[in-house]
């Protein structure tokens, strides 16, 4: 097993997985929050946009979005996210395109998680906020969202775990994350096929299990007392 680790950069591959997860999670959280606010806003156009966003991205396979970022956004529409002169151009560009795909896709799930969180906030909270003169955005920011996030910890955590595993889809546009390296290894070392599978399965469990434990702990601690 030691030779597998020296022959292939397994830890490096998982490091790429972690980086993809980290940046995509931040992107998804920001986009998802904005879309969720649109979906509960009093402006019909924004509500319509939010609903369309969720319906489009939640119902499109991630692989399709991933391939589109590479073939559509980059190669056809010319969206370049890295320095074209750099010798790491393909690596960097694909990595960033993958983050875009992961972020916009998971944002739809973040939005719906948050919306379920918003539904846990009693309507009286928003009414009281309106009655002291807070505007819609102030109401959302100071009263509704802080409580909605607490109510949404569990579904948000589920989305994060799904995101960690969905980073494997980035391999279709050549990002050398864990599953990409795994496929390489399976080609080269079919003799230890089961060992390779087990290494990667355990690798992902090591990433996701603590997230699950953290979610449980956080949701218990943050639960809004009524």
């Amino acid at each position: 097993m030691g030779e597998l680790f020296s022959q292939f950069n397994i830890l490096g591959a998982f490091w790429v997985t972690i980086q993809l997860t980290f940046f995509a999670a931040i992107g998804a959280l920001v986009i998802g929050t904005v879309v969720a606010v649109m979906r509960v806003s009093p402006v019909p156009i924004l509500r319509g946009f939010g609903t369309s966003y969720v319906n489009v991205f939640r119902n499109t396979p991630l692989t399709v979005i991933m391939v589109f970022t590479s073939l559509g956004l980059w190669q056809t529409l010319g969206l370049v996210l890295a320095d074209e002169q750099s010798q790491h151009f393909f690596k960097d560009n694909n990595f960033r395109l993958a983050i875009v795909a992961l972020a916009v896709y998971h944002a739809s799930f973040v939005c719906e998680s948050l919306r379920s969180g918003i539904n846990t906030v009693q309507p009286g909270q928003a009414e009281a906020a309106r009655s002291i003169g807070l505007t819609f955005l102030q109401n959302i920011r100071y009263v509704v969202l802080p409580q909605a996030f607490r109510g949404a910890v569990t579904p948000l955590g589920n989305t994060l775990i799904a995101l960690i595993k969905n980073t494997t889809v980035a391999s279709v546009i050549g990002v050398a994350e864990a599953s990409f390296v795994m496929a390489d290894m399976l080609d080269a070392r079919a003799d230890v096929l089961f060992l390779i599978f087990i290494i990667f399965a355990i690798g992902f469990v090591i990433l996701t299990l603590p997230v699950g434990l953290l979610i449980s702990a956080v949701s218990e601690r943050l639960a809004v007392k009524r």
Partner: protein
Amino acid sequence: MTDALPAAHVDPDGAASTSGRPHTGEPLVVLDHVNKHFGELHVLKDIDLTVHHGEVVVVVGPSGSGKSTLCRTINRLETFESGSISIDGKPLPDEGKDLARLRADVGMVFQSFNLFAHKTILENVTLGPIKVRGVKKAEAEQRARELLERVGVQAQADKYPAQLSGGQQQRVAIARSLAMDPKVMLFDEPTSALDPEMINEVLDVMTKLARSGMTMVVVTHEMGFARKAGDRVVFMADGQIVEENTPEEFFLHPRSDRAKDFLGKILTH
């Protein structure tokens, strides 16, 4: 429009009563032919009501008579279809910043308190002044502590709403509204969710507030409060204002059959 006429009378204990004070003040809240439906149900039928500066109007009536809706319509937590509402001469704006600004001038106390569950008592009271009025934090906190002392919950300032009793929470809610220096305060059945022993501590605060000259619209089932602190009683039934009078007159000599029936049911025990 029948205004409350000054009824010169004297309390049993000999002290001059504060109820039935003359109201020569300017009109503050004016509802003009307000109509509202919930689907098929006509909940507010052609409501005309004027509340003057410094006046305490108590709205009573059976459940489902539209009195809570009336209260919520005044600061547009409920929309209405026709008619107009103006506050201090300004018509109620539609959604947006103007409406938010107007709401800041209209305090509201809810049946279910609605304190911000994730904020401390002190933060509950300072949020509005800081974010809406732009008051500095230290200044807002000092004012908040004064208000909390005025309603008797200063010791709870750093706790969260869930740690307080219902009566304490409702008094904090009153302080939260007062912190905005409202022109008028609306009370939507403020004691209906309280245990009997906590009702008085809230009513005491409201009575003091009424005596200090605050303009108030109070929807309540507390007839004692209506008698003690009210300047005028508005009796609603089936979405209409059926009768308006001074508390004294209303309770002793109700004119309409609907009011006689209502009072007969609640005052016999």
